[in-house]
């Protein structure tokens, strides 16, 4: 273990976190010094500006202390890369929670840690009952953590900081989602830059489109610049923090459709966009993406029909998401039914929000018919494509697992048949198949352990809540079903459960291995 290099990299990570904090700081300055908000918010913005400055000071101080001595030996091995990533994400969350506590937005540190980890891991599970009451700058910091976490913080650092040569691949492998990681271009740094450029362009595009929001009607205005920026950040990272309690339910259909489309765009492998740009259409629309789109279409069709024919007249009260202003939002008509277009819109939105692992909400799907709920839970596990900002198992892994089952079945019929799993007519190496299988088992074991730990909590009264709380955090989705459906939040859990779920979120984002390694004694042993 190259402890010095780990310390040095983590030091840089804190310096970068201080840089990230300038985004909410700019928001605070805009709303306080420029005085563009109503007087009641004026003071809180001033105070959150100070809290952000203090947090930045802490990050910079620690960062400088850790980076002042440059390590001579800069070589990193696979193990170091994994440890850097795991510790890095813990550091990010631990320090990123400070402004919430100092500003008083989230007074309890454990709550703040949960919220920050939820942000960086792009989960979107929240413990805040009334989001609107938070200072604008704190809302911005929440959304921005999604954006930073979506693509990976250490990849970002690598794009801008020459930390070392080839060994950076270990860091990228540990941080990027999916069973395999390949470079787009020979140079690691250029690859990281290209990925961030794509990410940046797509985010800006979404932000601009959202500004054209026509609004719902005369009173309910369109998206403000602040709202559009936050929504763009949270969608790009497939995070799902809302800036008002009813998430996107209160916004116009236009905004909801734009977010639906972009959630799907951000859950497709980013290298496809690069290949598209290079006009390699065949490579861009690979099997994973075709299957992903197929799953999306089938799920939308099934849920649309299911909720279109369902009668909600008896469960109208459960359906609505009430925001703190007491306004209710639901598109169900007076007869307790969706119109076909509304059914389609909400089915599409919720399928996108779950499969992309964003976790925005429009309608309370926890009150939908069982079939729709089960489909939604299935989508939670499948997740997005590898190499995107989404979480879950990843379509490519599911694909390999399903094809693996097919191979076993064939082997039962023709025991001597030699068969390799192929994707896009290319054989998948046994090594990868093995690692995907191992990942699946690891995933199930971790899932069960977390489920046991969460069940200790007296707040958890039903299996649905326990099960989906772990599923929603480990897959980085956000809302679950039962007591943590889109209409409610995670505030009621005990502190112990919150810490368990915080671990679940970060472990899920980093795809288990880096976080599990922290618990292996041999990781810390000297060679």
């Amino acid at each position, binding site marked *: 273990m190259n402890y010095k290099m780990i310390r040095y990299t983590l030091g840089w990570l804190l310096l970068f976190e201080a840089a990230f904090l300038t985004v909410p700081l700019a928001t605070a300055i805009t709303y306080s010094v420029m005085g563009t908000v109503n007087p009641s918010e004026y003071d809180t913005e001033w105070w959150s500006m100070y809290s952000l400055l203090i947090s930045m000071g802490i990050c910079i101080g620690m960062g400088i202390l850790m980076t002042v001595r440059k390590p001579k030996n800069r070589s990193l091995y696979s193990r170091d890369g994994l440890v850097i990533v795991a510790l890095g994400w813990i550091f990010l969350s631990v320090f990123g929670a400070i402004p919430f506590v100092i500003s008083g937005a989230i007074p309890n540190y454990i709550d703040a840690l949960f919220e920050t980890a939820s942000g960086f891991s792009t989960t979107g599970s929240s413990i805040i009952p009334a989001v609107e009451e938070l200072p604008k700058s704190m809302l911005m910091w929440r959304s921005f953590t999604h954006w930073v976490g979506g693509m990976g913080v250490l990849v970002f650092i690598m794009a801008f900081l020459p930390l070392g*040569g*080839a060994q*950076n*691949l270990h860091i990228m492998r540990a941080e990027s989602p999916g069973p395999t990681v390949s470079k787009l271009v*020979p*140079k690691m740094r*250029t690859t990281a830059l290209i990925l961030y450029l794509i990410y940046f362009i797509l985010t800006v595009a979404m932000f601009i489109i959202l500004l054209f929001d026509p609004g719902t009607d005369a009173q309910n205005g369109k998206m403000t610049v602040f709202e559009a920026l936050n929504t763009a950040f949270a969608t790009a990272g497939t995070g799902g923090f809302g800036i008002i309690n009813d998430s996107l339910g209160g916004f116009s259909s236009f905004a909801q459709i734009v977010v639906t489309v972009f959630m799907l765009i951000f859950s497709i492998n980013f290298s496809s966009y690069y290949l598209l740009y290079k006009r390699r259409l065949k490579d861009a629309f690979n099997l994973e993406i075709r299957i992903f789109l197929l799953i999306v279409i089938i799920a939308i069709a099934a849920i649309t029909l299911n909720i279109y024919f369902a009668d909600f007249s008896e469960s109208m009260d459960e359906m609505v998401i009430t925001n703190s202003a007491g306004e209710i939002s639901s598109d169900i008509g007076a007869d307790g039914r969706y119109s076909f277009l509304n059914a389609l819109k909400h089915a599409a939105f919720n399928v996108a929000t779950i499969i992309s692992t964003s976790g925005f909400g429009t309608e309370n799907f926890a009150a939908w018919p069982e079939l729709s709920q089960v489909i939604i839970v299935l989508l939670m596990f499948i997740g997005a494509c590898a190499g995107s900002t989404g979480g879950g198992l990843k379509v490519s892994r599911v694909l390999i697992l399903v094809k693996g089952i097919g191979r076993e079945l064939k082997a039962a019929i023709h025991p001597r048949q030699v068969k390799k799993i192929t994707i896009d007519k290319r054989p998948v*190496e046994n090594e990868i198949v093995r690692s995907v299988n191992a990942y699946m088992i690891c995933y199930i074991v971790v899932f069960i352990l977390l489920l046991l730990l969460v069940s200790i909590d007296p707040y958890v009264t039903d299996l649905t809540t326990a099960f989906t709380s772990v599923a929603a955090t480990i897959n980085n989705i956000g809302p679950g079903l039962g007591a943590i459906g889109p209409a409610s939040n995670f505030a009621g859990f005990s502190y112990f459960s919150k810490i368990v779920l915080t671990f679940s979120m970060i472990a899920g984002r980093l795809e288990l291995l880096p976080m599990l390694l922290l618990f292996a004694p041999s990781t810390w042993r000297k060679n």
Partner: protein
Amino acid sequence: MNIIIVGCSKVGETLASQLGKENNNVTMIDLSSEKINDITTRYDVMGIVGNGATHTTLVEAGIDSADLLIAVTDSDELNLLCCMIAKKTGKCRVIARVTSPEYNADIPYLKDELGLEMIINPEFAAAEEIARVLRFPSAMKIETFGKGRVELLTFKLPDSSNLVGMKVKEVVTKLKSDILICTVDRDGEAYIPNGDFTFCGKDVISIIASPRKASTFFKKINFAVHAVKDVIIAGGDELTHYLCDLLKSSGISIKIIEKDAECCDELCSKFTDATVINGDYADQELLEEEGLKNTDAFLALTKHDEQNIIISLFAKGFDKTKIVTKINRNEYEAIIKHLDLDTAIYPKNITADIIVRYVRAMRNAIGSNVETMYSIIPDKVEASEFSVREGSPITEAPLAGLRFKSDVLVAAILRGRTVIIPRGHDVIKAGDSVIIVSKHRVLRDISDILETRRDA
């Protein structure tokens, strides 16, 4: 520059590491996914699994935007095919490694007709290096600059030399030798010595000098330079064939010991002047009978590294003999350093060096004006040749008046046909070629050696 390397052999790996470090975009192609996985985790390069001689794989590797393709697989035919397909598909330059002597004669034809920029034969390159060392047996290694006008010689200082205990500045004052001490490698530590540096026995010293002055220098320090008159070569493989060709006209008498009778037949029909002996080169009696004790040079050039090392160590017992050992596996390099062998020749390293030199020259056209570059002590000290342009800040004052960065040395100035070993009063002029020795530095332009002035 975008470079595609076909074949993850040892040469390919050395190239990937070196060229990747020099900020080129390197893509490796190999059939074995294991090798590709290994190489992409260790170096910052992209890997593609596939046959480099297929159009599809080359397109996938980005042949359209590649500047250079280097084919260094173990198969000559595959390398040539790769290059031909690359030539047809892209606009890149191509380099092929071709080992077989049959193709060696065809190199000019292949270059002209197939448009290959460079064909490199590791065995032939090794033979050339051996021939150079034989001309100057005191040196372990000889590199040439400025089309052969300047030589960079590396030698190990024997304890008996009168240079031991002398200071660097006394080389000029006492010995009156017009040579320049570039680097000293002492116990694995590299030094660029200043005037007060004192020499010790067993130092590995590299000097820059013109060939004639170098030989007078060696006489003055009691490090006898007697030209090699006869050699014994153990092993009659390709390398021996090439070497005999090169030595044909030099007047050196050659004795070849080879186990295989057929090989012996071939050798003696091809080289009528050489004495070919059919016998076991590991047989001590045979070696002594054939005059190992009195020969000037003994070359261990068999196929097996271990055998080469062992018979070289045996021959080492006769201290007048110059010993050259061929080593195929670069992995042995670190171990061999401890064995105190005389000159070890690594055909694979030589190949990689030559290709890297070519790539640097190619880059030269793009910006940096390095003409050639040699590593004197691998990964530590390099010597580079620069051409000086009009208006370069280095031409402004005599060398004594310029402020150089630390660990940088102006080793030689080539002006027209003359070679100047620079002293403080010399001035560099535009149009000169200058050889710079530097430690731990990437130099892109001659002005990089100057301390940046604060008032500028």
